C-alpha cells in the first residue's frame, strides 16, 4: 500500500507571510515513481467555482520507492489565508507521486500574526470589514 506524509519540522501549520519553513516528507510506494514533488498550492472554497493555483513545485531527485527528506519552502508574501462567508483562500502543501498520482495534503495558514484573516467581525479575532 502506498503511503505519503508531510509534516512541518516544528509541527506548526500557521506561518507568517514570506517565512521559510522546513518540511519533512516521507513516502513508501509499491512501485518506483518517475517523479515525486512537493507542491505549495492554494485553492478557494465557498459558494462560487473553485479556483486553484500552484505557487511552487519542489521536485525530489531520485526518490526511489521509499524514503524521507527535509525540504525548505519559501512561503509567499501574499495572498494571505482568509475566510469570508462567500469564499475562503486555503494554502496547502501537497506531496505528489507520478505517474500513480498518489498524494497527500496538509493545509497551512499564511497570514500576519499566523492567524487566518477573517472578513467578518468575530469577538477576539483579527477582523477586516468585508
Amino acid at each position, binding site marked *: 500500500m502506498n503511503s505519503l506524509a508531510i509534516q512541518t519540522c516544528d509541527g506548526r501549520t500557521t506561518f507568517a507571510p514570506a517565512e521559510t519553513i522546513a518540511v519533512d516528507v516521507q513516502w513508501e510506494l509499491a512501485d518506483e515513481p518517475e517523479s515525486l514533488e512537493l507542491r505549495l498550492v492554494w485553492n478557494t472554497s465557498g*459558494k462560487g467555482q473553485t479556483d486553484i493555483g500552484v505557487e511552487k513545485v519542489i521536485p525530489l531527485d531520485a526518490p526511489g520507492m521509499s524514503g524521507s527528506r527535509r525540504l525548505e519552502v519559501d512561503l509567499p508574501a501574499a495572498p494571505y489565508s482568509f475566510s469570508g*462567508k*462567500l469564499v475562503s483562500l486555503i494554502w496547502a502543501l501537497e506531496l505528489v507521486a507520478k505517474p500513480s498520482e498518489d498524494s497527500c495534503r496538509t493545509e497551512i495558514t499564511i497570514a500576519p500574526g499566523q492567524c487566518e484573516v477573517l472578513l467578518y467581525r468575530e469577538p477576539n479575532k483579527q477582523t477586516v470589514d468585508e
Partner: protein
Amino acid sequence: MLRARDNPFAVERVLRLRYQFCNNDWSSLLQRLQSLNYLATIVGPKGSGKTTLLEDLAERLKARGFRVHRLFLNEQSRAYPTHFVQNLRDSLGEHDIILFDGCEQLSLPAWWRFRWETRRAGGMIITKHRAGRLPTLIECRTTRELFIELVGRLHEPTTLAPDTLDRLFQKHHGNLRDAIRELYDLAAHEPGCSRTRESSDGR
C-alpha cells in the same frame, strides 16, 4: 458567521455528489444507450442532474474504449462551437463520442450543421430541457426525497428543519442546484447549521 471553507454546502462539496438514479441503474442505462447507437438525449429541467449524469457517463464510456469529447454551451456562451468542430472534424471516428451539454443553445439550423460536421463520430449524447433532436436516453427528475437525501449527505446529521427543505424544494421548483445554493446562504448566516462539521473537524 460561518467561514466559507466550513460551509457544508460549499461548491466543491456539492460537486462531489454523484448522479443518483430514481428508477434506473447504470447497467440498463448503458444497454439503452447502446441500443440507441450512442445517439441520445438526456432530458431534464435545470438543476435535475443532467450535467452530473453526463460527467459520470463520460467515465463509463472511457472505460468502454471511447474517446470522449466534451462540449458545453449555456446562456452566456451559446455561439456555434467553431473551434471545437475544426479541431475534431477530421479526426473523428467510430471510437469518438461527443458529450454536448446545453445542446438547446444551438438553433435548429446550427444543430443540423453541427450534426453534419461531426457525423463521423461514433456517438453523441446531448442534454436538453425538453425531448428532441436525438432519442431520449433518460429523463432526469428530482424529488423531495432525493433533495433531503443529498442534503443529508452534505450535512449529516442535518439540523435543518424538514419544513425548510420542503419550502426550498417548492420554491426552486425542484432545481436542486439552486436550492442547495440557498442552503449555502442559510448555513453561512446560521452557525447552527454547521454544528456537525465544526464538531467533527474539531474546529
